[in-house]
């Protein structure tokens, strides 16, 4: 038989003004199982809590109901008090007679009756409460960061500086990502390389960062605090430990005319190469598709000239398992390509802009490379077709973005700003040139952003035309731009020397595959989903996995860096303790009843349900049942509502507790 203690709070006058608290205490005291009931001015005050603890000890109470304010207010307070008196905290419940009763009703009699019923309901509920032990999970204090762009670099440095080991995995031969390709950055026009490369070097030199470049995530197992990640290190054909980065191999490689993707195919590179001179690590990689040795078996020049003997044609992919406790996903974005899209693709191309076949119609990133001092033209703006300096240049915004017809409805967020920057860079380099920008809306929220945009118009003389471009076509060596100015309401035609398209930010190709490996969710475009749009913007719903940068949605550099540091802080919070403690409101499976239909697994938003084999003593398979991993379970209880045989139960909200409440009414 339970011995329940009921404590009715006056809350000063907040409750007692409309609810006859003495009557409530008296009436509830008559309920079977209630061994003690009283009322007090302020239950949450020190003396109030003292009263509670004293009663627990003296009256040998088995359960406690505190009738007071909302549990959202003081449940933690009272559960802690109960715990300090030696009871399991989950044997204490609160009856909300303030927010749900005294404050919303005026009639004293009505309110009192309602309060008695509310408390009675909680008394019935608490009788069915069970002792719930706190759940602890061990934490491996190492972190994995996927992606070596500015987001991954920032997160890795922050976590490593906090004293934890970091494994940084980058798909390309060098870290740096898109930011390393940029010329200058808005709104300050800092040289991107000047602020980026020191950070890259920091990563390379950090004693607690283990860097895997030219590597990808193969497989992820485990859960928060306890992941096992398999990394595939692709064959580089150069042994990193031996290579000194002298660069002789690159100089001597006879294959020289391979378009360099880092330079948007404007420059050339050899078959053994580093993507750009400041690459980290400064270890070349052999492009096996274009290398004569791999294509014909002959050549081998690089091996011959390599002093330390680092070139290894026999190298194979290696799989490495890394145990980590947290994962930061910072895989970044791809740019919408203006080339023709394959038939049936959900993202459609721009035939009206020539499908990328007009040579002097380029995208924004190509313009960055043209404008970059370390780029293929040494920072001179020139036309890819004939190397002439363009005197009339047209920028078109929202290419791909905000175009549901093309399959992308969202705003890419950064294009308004980078186009404004492009007009400035252009004006700085081509003084007698004229820049035109076709735009729909200028979206420039951000510190010093609108001022920057206005500067491009007012000081750098860019002509902004509100309206879109219908079509581009080549006419002689000019490109005819057929647009409209909707403010004036007339068509506009410009014969341009060069056209720059501000193409959309898209999720990385293959983002969905990685998400499936990690067990995180993504939206219809394949951007990764955060756990809560407002309150948990850097966490995935899957515990222990955090997001940084444009893999979650279009972002500029400041936002990316902030989010990366935020993700790092979340990782540090997790690593601050040796054991992970969590509220024991988790689902548990009654294996005897489970028939293995796995409805629970199908509805679980967290992927917390696993399949577990039950075997007899001889090792024969008896049945397969569900198992809820308490480290991963979020505690929503959708599984229980869905389970046909109710063989999975959410602790703290069991059917028994709920039915007891309904039956009390």
């Amino acid at each position: 038989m339970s011995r329940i203690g009921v404590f009715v709070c006056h809350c000063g006058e907040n409750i007692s003004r409309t609810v006859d608290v003495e009557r409530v205490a008296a009436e509830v005291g008559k309920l079977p199982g209630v061994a003690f009931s009283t009322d007090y001015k302020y239950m949450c005050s020190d003396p109030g809590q003292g009263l509670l603890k004293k009663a627990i000890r003296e009256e040998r109470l088995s359960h406690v109901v505190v009738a007071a304010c909302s549990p959202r207010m003081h449940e933690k307070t009272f559960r802690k008090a109960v715990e300090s008196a030696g009871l399991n905290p989950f044997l204490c419940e609160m009856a909300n007679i303030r927010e749900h009763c005294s404050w919303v009703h005026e009639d004293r009699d009505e309110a009192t009756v309602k309060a008695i019923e509310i408390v009675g309901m909680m008394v019935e509920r608490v009788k069915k409460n069970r002792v719930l032990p706190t759940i602890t999970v061990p934490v491996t204090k190492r972190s994995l960061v996927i992606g070596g762009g500015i987001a991954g670099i920032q997160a890795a440095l922050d976590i490593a500086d906090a004293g934890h080991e970091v494994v940084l995995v980058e798909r390309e031969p060098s870290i740096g990502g898109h930011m390393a390709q940029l010329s200058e950055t808005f709104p300050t026009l800092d040289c991107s390389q000047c602020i980026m490369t020191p950070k890259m070097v920091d990563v390379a030199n950090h004693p607690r960062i283990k860097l895997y470049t030219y590597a990808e995530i193969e497989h992820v197992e485990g859960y928060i605090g306890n992941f096992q990640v398999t990394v595939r290190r692709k064959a580089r054909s150069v042994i990193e430990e031996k290579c000194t980065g002298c660069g002789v191999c690159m100089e001597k490689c006879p294959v020289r005319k391979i378009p360099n993707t880092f330079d948007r195919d404007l420059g050339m590179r050899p078959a053994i190469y580093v993507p750009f001179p400041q690459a980290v690590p400064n270890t070349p990689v052999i492009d096996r598709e274009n290398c004569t040795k791999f294509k014909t078996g002959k050549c081998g020049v690089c091996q011959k000239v390599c002093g330390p003997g680092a070139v290894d044609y026999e190298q194979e992919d290696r799989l490495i398992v890394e145990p980590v406790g947290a994962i930061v996903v910072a895989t970044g974005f791809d740019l919408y390509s203006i080339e023709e899209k394959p038939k049936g693709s959900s993202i459609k191309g721009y035939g009206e802009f020539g499908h990328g076949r007009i040579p002097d119609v380029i995208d924004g990133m190509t313009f960055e490379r043209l404008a970059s001092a370390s780029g293929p033209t040494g920072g001179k703006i020139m036309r890819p077709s004939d190397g002439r300096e363009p005197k009339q240049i047209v920028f078109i915004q929202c290419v791909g973005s905000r175009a549901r017809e093309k399959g992308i409805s969202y705003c890419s967020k950064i294009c308004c700003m980078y186009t404004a920057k492009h007009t400035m860079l252009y004006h700085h380099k081509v003084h007698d040139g004229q820049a035109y920008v076709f735009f729909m809306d200028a979206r420039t929220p951000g510190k010093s952003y609108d001022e920057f945009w206005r500067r491009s118009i007012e000081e750098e003389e860019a002509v902004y035309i509100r309206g879109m471009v219908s079509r581009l076509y080549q006419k002689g060596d000019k490109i005819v731009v057929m647009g409209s100015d909707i403010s004036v309401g007339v068509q506009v035609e410009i014969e341009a020397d060069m056209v720059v398209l501000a193409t959309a930010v898209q999720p990385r190709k293959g983002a969905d595959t990685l998400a499936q490996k990690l067990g995180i969710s993504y939206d219809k475009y394949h951007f990764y989903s955060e756990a809560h749009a407002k309150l948990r913007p850097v966490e995935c719903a899957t515990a222990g996995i955090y997001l940084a940068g444009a893999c979650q949605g279009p972002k500029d550099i400041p936002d990316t860096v902030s989010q990366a540091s935020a993700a790092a802080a979340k990782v540090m919070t997790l690593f601050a303790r040796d054991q992970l403690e969590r509220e024991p409101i988790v689902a548990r499976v009654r294996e005897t009843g489970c028939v293995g239909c796995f409805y629970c697994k199908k509805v679980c938003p967290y992927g917390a349900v696993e399949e577990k084999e039950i075997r007899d003593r001889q090792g024969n398979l008896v049945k397969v049942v569900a198992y809820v991993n308490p480290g991963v379970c979020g505690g929503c209880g959708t599984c229980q509502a869905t389970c046909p045989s109710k063989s999975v139960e959410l602790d703290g909200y069991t059917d028994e507790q709920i039915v007891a409440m309904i039956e009390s009414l």
Partner: protein
Amino acid sequence: MHTEKEKHTFEPKIIAFVCTWCTYAGADLAGTSRMQYPANVRVLKFPCTGRIDPVFILKAFQQGADGVLVSGCHPGDCHYIAGNFHARRRFAAFRKLLEFVGVDLGRLQFSWVSAAEGGKWVEMVTGLTEQVRGMGPMQEFKELALEEQWSGSIDTPELQEAYDQI
């Protein structure tokens, strides 16, 4: 400002099943804003609407509820990512079933009430209370509960004949 409270002959019993993150918090907000609403509602807190089993609604009606309110987070706001989406489907189906067996759906209300919508909570509770008050008590389940009649009632001539022969 004290208006004379109307006395009603029938005070319906309303049971509300709400999620703790949105609607429960919304009801708290109604309290902290001192909004007023009928005292007929009893609130049962769940972690998520995804936890609410249709059987609970049935049970509530059997237990004498005259109206049932189910309320949770707006789509996309679920604290547990998708619990309310699952609940939405479940209840879309369940209400059709209840309707088919003859339960007047005027007694069963679903709503999305966020933590910021104290006013909407008041509106929902008041609306349902008044609506159910207008419909009168939920007699069906109460009558059913009172019927002790064994299923094999002798209501056909064949059965009567067979019974008489025993």
